């Protein structure tokens, strides 16, 4: 394997602290998360621009480029329109853990060749939700 004199690059690399790199990683990962949410919704840049009330498409391109230092306001707006979580405030919001109990009744037919007919899920407020499912093919 050939070795090269990459002195300038190595010198610059030695100046990059883990803390600095973590900030860049976070910006890049936020951009990835936004792009994946757009893809899941089938949105292009123009659609996101309209949903965010922006008028300049290059702003969306910059958000997706991994170079943007987002404000909290923008992240909250992105969370709302894309229906994703970008800021993890779960622990700060409440220290209480909510436990919900569900009772699931599954009706299984005697004949194994028959399809599973239904299952009942009873929720804590005693409202029965009827789910017709086909699990076996």
């Amino acid at each position, binding site marked *: 394997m050939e070795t*090269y004199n*990459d*002195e*300038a690059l190595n010198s*610059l690399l030695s100046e990059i602290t883990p803390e600095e790199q973590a900030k860049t990683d976070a910006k890049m990962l936020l951009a990835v998360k936004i792009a994946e949410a757009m893809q899941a919704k089938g949105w292009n840049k123009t659609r996101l621009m309209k949903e965010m009330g922006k008028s300049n498409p290059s702003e969306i391109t910059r958000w997706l480029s*991994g170079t943007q230092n987002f404000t909290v306001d923008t992240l909250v707006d992105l969370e709302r329109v894309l229906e994703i979580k970008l800021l993890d405030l779960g622990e700060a919001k409440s220290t209480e853990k909510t436990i919900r109990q569900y009772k699931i009744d599954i009706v299984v037919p005697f004949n194994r060749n028959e399809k599973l007919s239904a299952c009942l899920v009873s929720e804590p407020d005693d409202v029965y939700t009827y789910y017709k499912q086909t699990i076996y093919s």
Partner: protein
Amino acid sequence: MALNNDEETLLNKFVRENEISFKSETKDIVKRLISIGHTTGARSQFFKEWEGKPGDGVCALYDKPYSNLRLYCICYGTQLIIIGSGGHKPKTIRALQEDKKLTEENALIKEISRQITQRIKDKEIRFTPDYLDFTGDLSFNDED
């Protein structure tokens, strides 16, 4: 990637040429290359595409907002990128062709892409099974 018998890679040349005048921008580009290599992969959203000829994979890493430093690359999917060199694109110009240095760097990366494509066609270069690298005859000379 290094050219001919150069002792330095094109990326080192890029850093050496810009670290004085555009220190923070150069550092930012290197940090983003580290993120791409270790965390996110080379997603197309991080690159300004169509910086070369149609289908040749030549692109430029997006510059930091309000910075105009261009680093040319060749992308092969999201797993493999060849990092070339680049330079500063002054705000006074719109097209890279208006700057001699950028024009030369862009022509160089397009030529490298052309030669790699030709060698892939000639089966002199292949992707490794994990598509993370090339294997084969990777020495290029001006005569090629």
